[in-house]
C-alpha cells in the first residue's frame, strides 16, 4: 500500500489526482443534491406536527453531521502529518477547515431559522446547537493558528497538533454539553429528530446526506488544489498550470 501511496507525496501528482476527481464529485454533488432537495421540497409530504417547516431538516441535518465528519477527517490528516510528515495532508487541514466551518455555520443558521417557528425564538441553548457553536470555535482556533506563523510549515504543524487535541476533546465536549442541557432543561425539547421518520421523508434526506458529502469533498478538493499551488508557487509545473507557460527558473 505504501508503494502505491508514495507517488502521491509528490505535490504535482496529488494536484493532478485532485484535478481529475474534482469534476466527478462536483457533477455528482449537484445532481444528487438537486434530486434530493427537489424531492424534499416538492414531493415529500408535510410533517403532521411541524407542517412544512420540517423541510429545513434536509439541509440542517446533513450540514450538522458533516460539520463533525470534516473535523474528524481533518484530525486524521493531522495525525498523518505528525507521524509520517506528509505535507500534503497538512495542506488538507487548511483546505478542509473552512469547509467544515461553513457547514457548521449552515447548521447553526438553519437551526436558528428552524427554531423560530418550532420554539418561538431564534436561539435556544439546545444541546445540538450549542455543540455546533463550540465546534465553530474549534474550527476558528485551528484556522487562526494555521495562519499565525511566518513559516507556513510551522503553522501547518501547530494546527495539526491543535486539531488532534481538539478531536480528543470533542467527545468530552459533546458529552458535557448534552449533560448540561438535560440538567438545565429537564426533558428537553428536541423536536429536531422525529423518533421514526416516514420513508417518504427519509429517502430525500438520505439523498441530501449523500449530496452534502459529495459537495464537501468537491469543495475540499477545490481548496486543496489552490493550497498545493500556493505552496509550490514558482515551480515550473505551477506556472504552466496557472498561465500556460513554464517559468525557466
Amino acid at each position, binding site marked *: 500500500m505504501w508503494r502505491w501511496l508514495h507517488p502521491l507525496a509528490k505535490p504535482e501528482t496529488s494536484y493532478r489526482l485532485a484535478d481529475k476527481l474534482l469534476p466527478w464529485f462536483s457533477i455528482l454533488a449537484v445532481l444528487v443534491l438537486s434530486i434530493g432537495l427537489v424531492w424534499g421540497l416538492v414531493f415529500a409530504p408535510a410533517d403532521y406536527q411541524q407542517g412544512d417547516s420540517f423541510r429545513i431538516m434536509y439541509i440542517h441535518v446533513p450540514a450538522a453531521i458533516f460539520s463533525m465528519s470534516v473535523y474528524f477527517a481533518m484530525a486524521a490528516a493531522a495525525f498523518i502529518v505528525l507521524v509520517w510528515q506528509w505535507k500534503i495532508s497538512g495542506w488538507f487541514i487548511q483546505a478542509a477547515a473552512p469547509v467544515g466551518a461553513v457547514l457548521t455555520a449552515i447548521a447553526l443558521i438553519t437551526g436558528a431559522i428552524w427554531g423560530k417557528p418550532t420554539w418561538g425564538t431564534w436561539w435556544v441553548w439546545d444541546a445540538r446547537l450549542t455543540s455546533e457553536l463550540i465546534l465553530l470555535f474549534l474550527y476558528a*482556533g485551528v484556522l487562526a493558528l494555521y495562519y*499565525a506563523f511566518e513559516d507556513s510549515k510551522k503553522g501547518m504543524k501547530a494546527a495539526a*497538533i491543535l486539531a488532534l*487535541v481538539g478531536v*480528543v476533546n470533542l467527545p468530552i465536549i459533546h458529552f*458535557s454539553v448534552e449533560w*448540561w442541557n438535560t*440538567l438545565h432543561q429537564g426533558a428537553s425539547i428536541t423536536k429536531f429528530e422525529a423518533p421514526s421518520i416516514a420513508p417518504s421523508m427519509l429517502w430525500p434526506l438520505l439523498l441530501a446526506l449523500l449530496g452534502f458529502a459529495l459537495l464537501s469533498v468537491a469543495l475540499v478538493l477545490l481548496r486543496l488544489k489552490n493550497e498545493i499551488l500556493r505552496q509550490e508557487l514558482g515551480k515550473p509545473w505551477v506556472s504552466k498550470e496557472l498561465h500556460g507557460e513554464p517559468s525557466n527558473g
Partner: protein
Amino acid sequence: MKLSSLSLIMWVIRRDLRVANRQRSEWLNPLIFLLMVITLFPLGVGPGEQILSRIAPGIIWVAALLSGLLGLDRLLREDYEDGSLEQLVLQPVSLSMTGLGKIVAHWLLSGLPLVILAPLFGLLLSVPVSAWWVLTLSLLLGTPMISALGAIGAALTLQARRSGTLVSLILLPLLIPLLIFATSAIEAAAMGLPANGQLAIIAAMSVLALTLSPLAMAAAIRMSIR
C-alpha cells in the same frame, strides 16, 4: 548528568519557582485580576444575596479560566527568549517530563492560590457555607486541567504572531467541559445534593489532560524550536 524522571520534574519545578520568586508581579497580577472580576459582578448585577449565590459558581469559574489564561504567556515565553528552552530540548532527557514539571510549577503559582482563596470567593459572592468545601475541591481538581491545556496552548503559540489573544481563542472551547462540570458541582452542593459524580468527572478530565498534554506540549515545543 543522568536524571531520573522524578528528579528532573522536581528540578524544573524548583527552577521555575525560583524564577517566579524574582518576578512576583508576574504571577500575582492574574490573581489580582481575578479578585477584581469577582468584585465587578456584585457592582454590575447588584449586591442581592439571592442573585449572587445563584450565579456565583459561574462567575468564579469563568474568572478562574480567564485569569488562568492571562498568566500562560509566562509559562514558556521567557525560557524561549533567553534560550534556556533550547537548552532543555537538547538535554538527553524526556522533554515531556520537563513539560510536566513546567505544568506543575505553573499550577503551583496559578491554581493553588485559587484553591486557598476559594473560601474568600465564596464569602464575597454569598455561596452557602455548605458548598464551600465542594467549591474548594472543584478548584483543586479542576485547575490542573487549566495548566495542562494551557501549556499546550503556550507551546503552540511560542512563535506565532499576536499570540496573546490566540491562546485564549484556541483554549477556551477546550475548557468548556470543565466549566460545565465544575459549576454544576457547586450548584448541586449549594442545593444540598451530592456532587461526587461531577467532582469525579473533573478529576478524570484533569488526569487525562495531565497525562496527554506533556506529549502534545513536547511535540509543539520541538516544532517551535526547530
